[in-house]
């Protein structure tokens, strides 16, 4: 089992976030498939013995340009190459499926094409509480660093979460 810790702008002392290597590879494949657009999806799992354990990867379509409702500022230069959006219908469907299987949506993942796997100001401004944000860097179509983050209680910054890959 490898344990990676990222210092970021702050470190969380909260519970570890565990993910299997095969699920990391699933996220990698999604990032490569969608490149140069951002990929996005959810990680389903449970809290067990003080750890958040990922049990399933749920890739979804990036709906930045297709969702019926996009509440975010849309600049002329914005597209799926620099933005990812969850269609609420996908959230609804995946949340239902997760609860039927005794799991929860515990994380939202998205990729940063040709950018580091660190949260952006856009990520911070629009983050929801309690959700682990997993970011994958995809450089020239090659998957790179995978990091996990949790919004601080005051919303001012992201705190890095220890990411354990089993």
């Amino acid at each position: 089992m490898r344990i990676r810790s990222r210092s970021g702008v702050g470190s969380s002392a909260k519970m570890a976030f565990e993910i299997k290597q095969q699920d990391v590879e699933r996220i990698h494949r999604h990032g490569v498939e969608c490149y140069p657009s951002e990929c996005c999806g959810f990680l389903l799992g449970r809290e067990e013995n003080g750890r958040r354990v990922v049990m399933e990867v749920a890739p979804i379509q990036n709906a930045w340009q297709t969702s019926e409702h996009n509440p975010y500022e849309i600049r002329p230069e914005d597209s799926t190459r620099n933005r990812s959006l969850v269609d609420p219908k996908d959230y609804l469907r995946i949340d239902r499926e997760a609860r039927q299987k005794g799991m929860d949506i515990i994380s939202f993942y998205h990729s940063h094409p040709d950018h580091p796997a660190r949260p952006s100001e856009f990520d911070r401004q629009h983050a929801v509480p309690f959700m682990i944000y997993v970011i994958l860097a995809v450089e020239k179509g090659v998957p790179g660093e995978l990091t996990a983050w949790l919004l601080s209680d005051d919303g001012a910054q992201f705190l890095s979460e220890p990411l354990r890959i089993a």
Partner: protein
Amino acid sequence: MGVKVIIPTPLRQYTGKSDSVVVEGRTVEEILGNLMSQYGDLRKHLYNDKGNLRSFVNIYRNDEDIRYLEREKTAVKETDIVSIVPSIAGGISDKLW
């Protein structure tokens, strides 16, 4: 009359970690109002300073977005399920943490 309201993961810390609660009401407006009465901490996450539902909050009656029905005046039956669905997005910008 009690209607099941699904609470999304990010907001369950305000409902005692429950993923669903049963709330009285015949319209979405009544149901959300009673939900706020029971769980006051939810208010700032669902409503803006003007008392309007935030644009980042999606409310569904079963599989229908209430924006395309009668919005908060949408009628709800006891067998319906009301779901609170957060807007979730990510992206790249010039400033990185």
